[in-house]
């Protein structure tokens, strides 16, 4: 059960306050990017789950700097601004964090395709849960195709996000050294 929480490992301490805020700041940025209007046909429905990418990346590499309280706040604010039912994003992000935290050791120091495969499993599970929750909220069977296409878009864009987050992380580690 994902509710069982693994303890956060001790990682090199980052003393620079600004650098410590980077994981949560990038998660906030991901949430904002996902609600900005892009005038492309069908984009609104297929918007990749950017916040999930940030949560996956930081939970693997710097779980100490992505506190669950911050994640909860980002999730609730995202729901409020996007017009969706409040709490759903927060729930999915926190569950994703708990799940990744349990298995994070598997992903450290592995090749990128392995990390990407891990993200594919996570995003499939998370987006299907999101779909199921929305079906439950609306008491009707929603079209699963949109969710599937969204999953494909999310997995496809992950390498780009991972590269950007990796760069930010390296900058963060340099300030820590």
């Amino acid at each position: 059960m994902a509710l069982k929480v693994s303890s956060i490992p001790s990682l090199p301490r980052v003393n620079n306050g600004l650098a410590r805020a980077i994981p949560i700041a990038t998660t906030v940025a991901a949430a904002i990017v996902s609600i900005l209007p892009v005038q492309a046909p069908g984009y609104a429905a297929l918007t990749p789950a950017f916040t999930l990418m940030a949560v996956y990346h930081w939970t693997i590499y710097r779980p100490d700097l992505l506190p669950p309280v911050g994640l909860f706040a980002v999730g609730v604010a995202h729901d409020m601004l996007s017009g969706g039912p409040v709490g759903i994003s927060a729930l999915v992000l926190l569950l994703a964090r708990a799940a990744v935290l349990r298995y994070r050791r598997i992903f450290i120091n592995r090749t990128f395709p392995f990390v990407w495969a891990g993200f594919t499993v996570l995003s499939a599970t998370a987006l299907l849960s999101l779909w199921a929750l929305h079906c439950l909220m609306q008491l009707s069977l929603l079209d699963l195709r949109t969710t599937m296409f969204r999953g494909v878009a999310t997995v496809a864009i992950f390498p780009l996000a991972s590269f950007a987050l990796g760069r930010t992380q390296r900058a963060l580690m340099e300030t820590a050294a």
Partner: protein
Amino acid sequence: MIRPSAQLRATIQRTVPPFLILLSAAIIIVGKADQSMFESLRVALADDLSPGLDMLSRPFSVASTAFDRVRAFFTMYEDNLRLERENERLLQWQQAALKLSADNRDLRGLLKVVPENAVSYVTARIIADSGGGYVRTVMVNAGSEQGVSRGQAAITGTGLVGRMTEVGSRAARVLLITDLNSRIPVVVESSHANAVLAGDNSERPRLIYANDPDSLKIGDRIITSGEGGVFPPGLPVGVVTALEHGGARVEPYVDLSRMEYILVVDYGLSRALPQPVPVAGRASRRGKGSADEASAR
């Protein structure tokens, strides 16, 4: 500063995540039971963040405009031919429209029709959308300070976009006609059959509860009926593109994924009581142009 002991920190670290997960679940349930519970909080947050979102959304629209320009450069010749043909056709329609509008004015005068209320518009820019496909709404950078209020119709030059739902002082949310919760009373223009346009989160909303579903044809124009008093009658909505059992699919006139600005329309329906002395030929014509042109097509 007092630092919590290692044991206390470990306990907090262990209990906070499950607590927050349960809290999120509780919030979802409470929010579902009382839909208005988070509305004021939503509105306040949207108000506070709207200047920032407004600023952040601009590069996207600039990029989109630039992309359109590049594309337009390559399609200039075809576009020109198409527009020339279209212009020829529209000039004929203009003659027809002028004649019809003169007839209409005369007939309204003869029948002593109650003049329609004056219409005012608020132009608003879209600053956020819902991203994800489970909700079809957009946030705009105008609110009660600009004269927007709940229930007003949102349109573009081509047709109906949706209805204003949550309205703050500087920002408001538009429930698009494709949203699962959108229900718009409409009428089939050719047969005058009443129906309801129901969104289902797909690009093409469904036409349900039609008076006479068998008479629906592909190509039928759908306009608002004005029933229920939320929307004024006659706003162009879309066209029937597919027939289904007991209903049809309607393609909206507005391309909802490519909007940048919308018009919020105040038809003053709450004050729309009949005037005591209708004066012939004085029907208020301000702002009726787009609807008339569209229905002449």
